[in-house]
């Protein structure tokens, strides 16, 4: 049912050990995940990232995104007000739905990353016609 989320984020056990070794600050982007009939749509807010600095991996049912963000100001900048920090964005999701990894598509515009994860053929709802065999 709908309550049983098909996308779980790994808890203590990380899917990718690389997560632990990143030294610099990294942030968890806000996302919207929408399941449609034929695909999962993921929208992630990654402001400040450039499109050629975004890595998306899908491996063993784990979707991970890593967007590198270059510092925009010199490190010694004295802020009068600093309400947010900047750094890379990282987030990993476990996707239990069967995905056609070959057809994953991504777009980036205005600081928002859009990912299309098409469901594998087998996972799509299929209407089965029952034929009557009249003998």
């Amino acid at each position, binding site marked *: 049912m709908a309550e049983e989320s098909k996308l779980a984020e790994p808890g203590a056990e990380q899917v990718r050990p690389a997560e632990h070794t990143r030294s610099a600050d990294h942030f968890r982007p806000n996302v919207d995940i*929408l399941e*449609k009939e034929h695909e999962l749509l993921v929208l992630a807010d990654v402001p400040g990232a450039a499109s050629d600095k975004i890595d998306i991996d899908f491996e063993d049912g784990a979707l991970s995104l890593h967007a590198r963000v270059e510092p925009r100001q010199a490190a010694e900048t004295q*802020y*009068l*007000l600093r*309400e947010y920090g900047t750094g890379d964005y990282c987030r990993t999701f476990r996707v239990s739905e069967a995905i056609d990894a070959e057809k994953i598509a991504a777009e980036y515009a205005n*600081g928002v990353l859009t990912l299309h994860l098409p469901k594998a053929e087998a996972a799509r709802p299929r209407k089965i016609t029952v034929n009557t065999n009249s003998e």
Partner: protein
Amino acid sequence: MVFRYLWSQPSVQQVRQEMDRLLSGHFGDVAGGLLPRRGQPAVNVWEREDSLFVELEVPGVKTDQVDISVIEDELSIKIQRPEVEREEGIYHRRERGVGTFSRVMRLPVSVDADRVEAELRNGVLTITLPKAESARLRKIEVTSAS
């Protein structure tokens, strides 16, 4: 000998107090002091000798959805974050905020409102506010009258 005529630079603490005062005046009490309230975009503010800079992260926002105005020493920013077109399906996560966000800030120095510029790049809005002549650091040569 060189005298420095320096505009009084507010400390971070003073800016915070100012912000709190301003926010509580306009929007009621602010829980947590400096933390931006729900519906308020977070900002970073820094300065150089000749300008003040205000930066906000506004992913998904286009130039025509940003409204910036400067009246005397008040900067107001209004951002309309579009609702994602309603699509058929089930939301498993819905963390991205939508709607109108606004913020009014009192600037610590006078700025030249006519030359304020704003740039939107990869979801980051940077507002450059050139300081008014009177607010700039100025060196005054002292001549000796012998």
